[in-house]
């Protein structure tokens, strides 16, 4: 689908930071649509059931830093998440929990998803909390809404997550989606710079980087980050409103 293979010479000088963002939620809530929308800017006319995991990628430039966002799109059916998707919880930079505002079941399932993520996701990066976001999709079907904004916001507050209600289908909301990811990337870059850089870049990373470079033939260099430490600053974005732009 989408994988940016354009080798830009200019990127050689600057190191690239890769962030892995995973989207989880019930089947049919629009995980693939969100990933597709963000990666290509378009709403996919037809999506299929995702089997296993799949990822989309987009390159961004933030204040002179090149970053690559890898959006991992997962299968929604329960049987897949228990044995397959769990493998992909490791080393993520952020998690998006997604539900469908017209289907209460998908909203109620969020607590199970949170629990499961909590159970599997923290074995390696327990030094800092991984940012969690909550997104309610299908706002274009507003007249079929079942899950109220209030209810959702309460839940999000309870779990220290910023919350948005969006529609991946509406073209006008593309900006909202962009801004969600931009805000997130800002935060990720900032936290990595402050928490991670000084010790790792001078010692461990330089060697890792070297070895990565020698293996890479496509001209893309990436730093390897096995651990991502983040400050627990969820208090900051707790107060953000629905559909807020950065």
């Amino acid at each position, binding site marked *: 689908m989408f994988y940016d293979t354009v080798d830009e010479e200019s990127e050689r000088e600057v190191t690239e930071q890769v962030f892995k963002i995973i989207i989880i939620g019930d089947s049919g809530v629009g995980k693939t649509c969100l990933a597709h929308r963000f990666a290509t800017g378009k709403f996919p006319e*037809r*999506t299929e059931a995702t089997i296993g995991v799949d990822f989309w990628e987009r390159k961004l430039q933030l204040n002179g830093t090149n970053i690559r966002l890898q959006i991992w799109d997962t299968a929604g*059916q329960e*049987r897949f998440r*228990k*044995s*397959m998707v769990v493998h992909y919880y490791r080393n993520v930079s952020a998690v998006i929990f997604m539900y469908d505002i017209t289907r209460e079941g998908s909203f109620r399932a969020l607590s199970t998803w949170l629990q499961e993520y909590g159970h599997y996701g923290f074995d390696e990066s327990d030094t800092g909390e991984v940012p969690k976001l909550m997104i309610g999709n299908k706002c274009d079907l507003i007249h079929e809404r079942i899950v109220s904004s209030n209810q959702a916001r309460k839940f999000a507050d309870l779990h220290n997550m910023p919350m948005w209600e969006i529609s991946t289908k509406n073209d006008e909301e593309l900006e909202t989606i962009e801004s969600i990811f931009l805000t997130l990337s800002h935060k990720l870059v900032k936290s990595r710079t402050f928490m991670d850089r000084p010790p790792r870049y001078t010692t461990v990373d330089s060697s890792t980087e070297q070895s*990565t470079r020698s293996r890479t*033939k496509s001209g893309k260099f990436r730093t*390897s980050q096995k651990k991502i430490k983040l400050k627990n600053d969820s208090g900051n974005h707790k107060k953000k409103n629905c559909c807020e732009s950065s």
Partner: protein
Amino acid sequence: MARQEMLNSHYSYKKKVYVGKMKRQGNQNSGIMAQMMYYMSESRLRGKIRRITDALEADPVDVQTLKELTISADGLITVDLRCKVWTKLLNVNAFEFSRNQAKKKDNSELKQFHEHKYWRQVNLDVDRSHRRFPAEMRASRRRSLQEQLVRVIMRVLCQNQDLHYYQGYHDVAVTLLLVVGEDLATALLEQMSLHQLRDFMEGTMEKTTKMLAFLHPIIEEADPELDDFLIRSEVGQVFALSWLITWYGHVLKDFATIVRLYDFFLATHPLMPVYFGAALVIRRRTDVLSGECEMSFVHHLLSRVPDDLPDYVEELITTAHSLFCKYPPEKLAGAVERYLKESMAVAKHKQFLRELEDQRPDSVLRQRRKQLALYTNNELEVSPNFQSPNQTNTYTKLAVWTLTATVGTMALYVLSSAKRWI
């Protein structure tokens, strides 16, 4: 000069053999040689069709020959042959079930569907399965096929409560539906679910994961360098998940290639899709090895099946088959052994193969059905309550006996009363 020409023609002859094999170019290449090769491949196909028909008509059906012909180049060639041979490869009697289909579309069935725990999920997945239908198909036709698809899946699930639906099962069902139609697809899907797909339909995906893990030992035996690279990249094997559980129906775009693979997998071992996956990964070794040794990169590269796969699908089938013969599952060590012990698909496979040996040809089955139909239509009405063919048989017999007895008694009575009148 003459010699040169001969050499040339010899060369072009060799080249055309290849062209002839790839039917799509066939006749378009002008030149007498190309045309000859085209007709030769035509006659080859015709000969193959005849051999398949002969094997179908043997009594008992010559399943071994059918399998060999199914595996060999071009598979089963036509839709008609697929309908016939697939039923034999899955031990389905095409003439047994079709007569109780008419009564099936009633409300009680729909109610049963609605109450089933996978009803919503099945609908969700079928609704999103546009891509699997031919692009030129009219929307109304597609919708009606999608309704049929839901019925096919739900019938199998309702009749086998211990089978669990998985996303991707609909990809298998739609392939069958498009080839053989609703009634036969239900019967074939049920047999596949109880045999080849059995391990995917457990409550959890544990056995599927173990089956997927076969991929590495196969690659390790065949191409250690590549497997080492894959292991180092930590890619795992989830990239092959949809290959395995949908028999490549989810990832391939070309329908002819999908059904060709179904031919192959139906005629071989339940683990063959994994061997085919290994063959595919090995074929792409240069792409893999020249890329980054990193999880997301390798996952992305491998999870997408190349668009030109239809051009060399026959080669891949040959490779997969020879991989299977060279490194059969029993010879692969470690985790694989444990899987073999647990797998129901593999355990049942031998028994299943024995059952396949004892099938009657369609001509006999059709005859039988006709007789039975005559019988039932003339003598009595089939009650709509009959659930399965077996039950029907018992009921029919019972009814016939009762009727005979009644008629007999009546006759006796009439006779005796007639006597009195006289």
